[in-house]
């Protein structure tokens, strides 16, 4: 009988639910870990960048995020489906196990994130759906604005624990909850 492995989130025992930090008023930010997540890195083959960008447009059920020149993250679709669809256009690799996506939202979200990144997060500069690659606390972070006051931070699995510690420390002064 084949063994079935269930993928555990590296933050399973670290991102404890509850209310932390400043305890007056509503929490400044709410943190949550997206798990399990389907993440595929897609890199355009030589000369296929434009065709790939077209193929990634209006892909129902998939979330496509910019992740560097001629590179994307495709979320929410299984690896085999992505590879099949983009056959000949791009090289795909499954990153579902390799990255952790942390969602942070709330009225103080920009105040928390701007402690770590030089990227301008103002609403007029950073529209919904935009992604950037940057660095926070020496950790490479893929940052996406998903809603008006909600961002997703994608970091390598191995860095996720120390990154979580840094992030929660920055959120303490505003009060934060983990759901």
């Amino acid at each position: 009988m084949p063994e079935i492995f269930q993928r555990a989130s590296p933050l399973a025992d670290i991102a404890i639910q509850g209310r932390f930090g400043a305890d007056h008023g509503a929490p400044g930010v709410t943190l949550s870990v997206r798990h399990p997540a389907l993440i595929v890195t897609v890199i355009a083959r030589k000369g296929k960048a434009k065709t790939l960008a077209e193929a990634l447009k209006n892909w129902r059920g998939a979330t496509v995020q910019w992740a560097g020149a001629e590179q994307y993250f495709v979320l929410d679709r299984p690896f085999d489906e992505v590879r099949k669809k983009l056959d000949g256009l791009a090289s795909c690799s499954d990153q579902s196990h390799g990255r952790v996506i942390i969602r942070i939202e709330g009225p103080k979200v920009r105040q928390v994130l701007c402690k770590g990144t030089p990227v301008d997060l103002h609403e007029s500069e950073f529209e919904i759906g935009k992604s950037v690659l940057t660095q926070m606390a020496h950790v490479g972070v893929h940052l996406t604005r998903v809603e008006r006051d909600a961002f997703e931070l994608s970091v390598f699995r191995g860095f996720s624990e120390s990154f979580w510690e840094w992030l929660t420390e920055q959120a303490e002064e505003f009060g934060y909850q983990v759901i």
Partner: protein
Amino acid sequence: MLVKCPHCGTRPVEEFTFNGDASVQRPASNDPKSMDQWFDYVYLRDNPKGRFDEYAHHSSGCRAWLVVTRDTQSHEIFNVVTARDYAKKRVAP
């Protein structure tokens, strides 16, 4: 110091890893007679005062190789292009 990455926009220099002179060109020949050219290519570098083309890897950003043209004295940055565009431009006269 701020570097304007063609993919990411203006970012602090801490996000970049610099890797030396971009103007040197790899010799086309593997012939032992071209040893002098290879020696120049591998070991010898100018140390110019003024304008300088330098490889920069946006290691904490989009991970693209760039060529940053800066003044070695004032650190003024004149131009940033992708290493790919830089190489293409060099091949086509």
